[in-house]
């Protein structure tokens, strides 16, 4: 590793613009003649839209248009779709209810848009919206899973009788039941995986600009995957053909999954821009974000785990109900199925697993992928089960896990995934050492003398990242391929531009991707620019989610770099009259081994572009592209241990220590990797003790601002102790596994396991707020 190559904790290249206020987020952009959109949203969870009267609003000077769902339908703008097909047990396809971008006749959640006001300023648009009269006929609503599946429940969609989207299963039911029938011990648990609101700090925003002469749209938007947005807007929503639509995702202020999806507001902004022949900007306020950004999690599950007399696991049986909200969001169907049940084997050798998942419509905001997407739910279930089992079987929780760890790789689980590499004992050992496990009993005793309840909780998580290869995800129902593309442009003076289909919205790609180039070509990272987030600049890409930018995105760069290197070596070989095999790259120079002959990269590039003296038949230029499709998912894994102290008098939990030992394979920039883990842990801990999304029975979202929804703040969290163990991923050229979601996947189980250990009661729902903990202690 060089000073700036792979493995170096280089400070980030992109930081200067952010720390000086020069970041360029979508809402910072102003176009000439720009109008502002304000959406009129349903105050009811379920209602018929009877009429929309905009006459008064249109009288206000500066109001350009009021548009509603009927016109959207007339203009043949398509309904929103879910792009991952899941079939029920009986082979029938999932039941997708129609989701128009502006509801023409029925609204199914509070916040669903029915009309939009376009005006010269944001304030004017808001004022005018007050003058639009929408009359509704209220219908009965269901706000939670149990109400939605109760007999006689109000029905949301005619397409989905009983409000069931699908009833899906994975695994061998008969073999699993047989294992349970002969098991020595069975431990079961029922739990809720609480609904979360992603809350990226930058609210969603879109600016649509229609060019009437060229019949061409430009969309600036807060997207994690601008090419996918363009594809979906073109192919399914009938906005414009792809070559007439440019999507730009400039600086994006966090995503966590919520900015993967194509939302009604972007569609309407594009459509409205053409209608009014002016640019249209919409920026969400925070309550709108609560009411419209896809939420995460929201499962009710029962898990049962069976052991033989030696405490070896013989089977796992799970039944989960997943709340989808009022409509299917873009990838919602995959989250509680192929991203969830496929990870239920955890880090353990489990011979048979059977999981059933019923997906249910309710009159709430649509639910989709949120940091971890399915894998936190799986990890929480299996790790709560293991900890509960250890307590019931009266064995050490670390030892019960160790006894059942998978130790040889590759390992085929009974639920599709084939783990390629790992060392689960190593990460557990590292975490045990960091927390001083041996000293815990004494610490607990000392705390007890001080009137405090001390507890320790484990979480040994595994996740499947990369969300690739394309063939595999295609066979599981994905509507798109999930490879990544890259282009390496070496300019005539030797500077380098990397065009990538990955998108950075906090992950630091402008630094880490440049480090990969520095490692390969020996050039300083200041000589390398990373270009991303613009469909006109980057040919194609699948974007950033599922911890895939390193494993898939960087691998595509490596593949393109290999092609550049191969061509460069041919040029050098021609110029220096040496064999290509003898040429090595060192510090930005192509050297002939065993001689003092060398050629600087800049000279190679210049030779490629002047083309005065190239090998016979070689095309000029030094620019190569690659599409990379991995051979397997990657499998980051680790061990988290949390130590807490609970005040029995108030129910308040304080963190004593939180240790995380992760195996992400090779680390490109350890500083950035650790930052990703910190952020993930905060979200996992937030889910465990703070964040609860509350709907009342009528479907009103009670927690719709930062005053009501408890976001983790600095004084809610501890500092974290991180360590890394390494098994390289054999599935990609860098040996990387991905680190973006691990913290959010592993943390919540560790926290709840610690609190339940402290208080001596197993039944404790998330978020484990002081009142819930107090109630658990005092019955």
């Amino acid at each position: 590793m060089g000073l700036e190559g792979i493995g170096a904790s280089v400070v980030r290249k992109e930081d200067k613009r952010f720390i000086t206020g020069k970041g360029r987020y979508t809402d910072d952009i102003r176009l000439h003649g720009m109008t502002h959109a304000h959406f009129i949203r349903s105050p009811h969870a379920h209602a018929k839209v009877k009429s929309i009267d905009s006459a008064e609003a249109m009288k206000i000077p500066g109001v350009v248009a009021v548009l509603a769902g009927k016109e959207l339908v007339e203009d043949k703008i398509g309904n929103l779709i879910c792009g991952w097909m899941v079939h029920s047990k009986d082979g029938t396809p999932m039941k997708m209810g129609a989701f128009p971008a502006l509801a023409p006749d029925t609204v199914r959640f509070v916040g669903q848009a029915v009309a939009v006001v376009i005006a010269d300023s944001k304030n004017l648009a808001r004022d005018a919206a007050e003058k639009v009269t929408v009359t509704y006929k209220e219908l009965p609503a269901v706000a939670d899973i149990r109400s939605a599946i109760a007999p006689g429940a109000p029905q949301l969609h005619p397409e989905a009788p009983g409000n069931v989207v699908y009833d899906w299963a994975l695994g061998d039911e008969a073999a699993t039941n047989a294992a349970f029938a002969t098991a020595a011990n069975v431990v079961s648990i029922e739990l809720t995986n609480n609904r979360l609101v992603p809350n990226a700090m930058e609210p969603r925003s879109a600016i649509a600009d229609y060019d009437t002469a060229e019949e061409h749209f430009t969309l600036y938007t807060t997207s994690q995957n601008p090419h996918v947005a363009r594809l979906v807007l073109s192919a399914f929503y009938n906005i414009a053909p792809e070559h007439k639509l440019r999507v730009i995702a400039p600086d994006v202020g966090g995503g966590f999954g919520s900015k993967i999806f194509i939302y009604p507001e972007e569609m309407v902004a594009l459509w409205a821009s053409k209608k009014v022949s002016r640019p249209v900007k919409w920026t969400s306020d925070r309550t709108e974000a609560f009411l419209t950004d896809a939420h995460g999690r929201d499962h009710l599950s029962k898990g049962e785990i069976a052991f033989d007399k030696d405490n070896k696991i013989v089977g796992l049986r799970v039944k989960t109900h997943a709340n989808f909200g009022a409509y299917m969001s873009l990838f919602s169907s995959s989250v509680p199925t192929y991203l969830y049940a496929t990870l239920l084997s955890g880090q353990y050798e489990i011979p048979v697993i059977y999981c059933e998942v019923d997906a249910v419509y309710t009159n709430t905001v649509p639910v989709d992928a949120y940091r971890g997407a399915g894998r936190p739910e799986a990890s929480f279930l299996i790790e709560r089960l293991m900890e509960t089992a250890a307590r019931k079987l009266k064995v050490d929780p670390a030892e019960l896990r160790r006894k059942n760890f998978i130790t040889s790789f590759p390992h085929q689980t009974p639920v599709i995934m084939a783990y390629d590499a790992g060392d689960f004992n190593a990460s557990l050992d590292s975490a045990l050492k960091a927390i001083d496990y041996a000293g815990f009993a004494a610490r607990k005793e000392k705390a007890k003398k001080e009137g405090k309840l001390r507890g320790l909780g484990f979480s040994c998580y595994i996740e499947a990242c990369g969300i690739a290869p394309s063939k595999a995800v295609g066979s599981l129902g994905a509507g798109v391929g999930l490879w990544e593309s890259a282009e390496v442009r070496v300019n005539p003076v030797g500077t380098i531009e990397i065009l990538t289909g990955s998108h950075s919205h906090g992950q630091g790609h402008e630094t880490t991707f440049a480090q990969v180039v520095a490692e390969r070509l020996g050039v300083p990272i200041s000589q390398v620019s990373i270009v991303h987030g613009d469909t006109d600049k980057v040919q194609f890409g699948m974007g950033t989610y599922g911890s895939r930018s390193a494993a898939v995105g960087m691998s595509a760069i490596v593949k393109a770099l290999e092609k550049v290197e191969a061509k460069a070596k041919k040029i050098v070989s021609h110029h220096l009259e040496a064999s290509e095999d003898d040429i090595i790259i060192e510090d930005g120079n192509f050297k002939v081994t065993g001689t003092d002959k060398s050629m600087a990269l800049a000279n190679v590039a210049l030779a490629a572009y002047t083309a005065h003296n190239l090998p016979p038949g070689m095309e000029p230029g030094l620019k190569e592209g690659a599409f990379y499709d991995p051979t397997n998912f990657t499998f980051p894994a680790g061990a988290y241990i949390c130590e807490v102290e609970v005040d029995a008098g108030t129910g308040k939990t304080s963190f004593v220590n939180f240790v995380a030992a992760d195996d992400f394979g090779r680390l490109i920039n350890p500083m950035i990797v650790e930052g990703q883990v910190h952020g993930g842990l905060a979200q996992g801990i937030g889910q465990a003790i703070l964040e609860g999304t509350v709907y009342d029975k009528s479907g009103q979202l009670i927690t719709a601002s930062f005053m009501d929804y408890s976001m983790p703040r600095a004084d809610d969290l501890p500092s974290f102790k991180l360590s890394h163990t390494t098994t390289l991923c054999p599935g990609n050229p860098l040996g990387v596994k991905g680190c973006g979601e691990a913290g959010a996947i592993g943390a919540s189980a560790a926290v709840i396991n610690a609190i339940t250990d402290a208080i001596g009661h197993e039944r404790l729902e998330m978020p484990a707020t002081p009142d819930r903990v107090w109630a658990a202690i005092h019955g």
Partner: protein
Amino acid sequence: MPAVKLTVNGKAVSGDVEDRTLLVQFLRDTLGLTGTHVGCDTSQCGACVVHIDGRAVKSCTVLVGQANDANVTTIEGIARGDELHPMQAAFRDNHGLQCGFCTPGMIMSAIDIVKRHGGSLDEATVRQELEGNICRCTGYHNIVKSVLDAAGRMKVSQAAE
């Protein structure tokens, strides 16, 4: 429309504004100083923090009229030319930011925290003082490190002056 005049980052500025114009709207929309962000509209997240007459204030909760004649400093106004403010440098060096959206408000709040507490800052105090600034990316670990690091740097630079 009433007229306002104030000093922003050392420059005298003025404009005719609607009564309801918030300071953050004036900064972003009228002056084009888009480094100050709006993250929540309810004074919870702190992405909009600026300094008014040297004190950290949430600019989404102040009418620009209330800042008439005041001296406002935004994130764009704290570096001296190419020389970063020690707090900016500390955020970069300690990886105290990821997506960058909360960062301007964090930095403006943190400068105020250090000024008020001087050399007596510790982790617990920093965490408590950052109550009004929400970050969704970093888990605060490196933000706390950044603020403590900057506190040391600011002490040194003050001593040098």
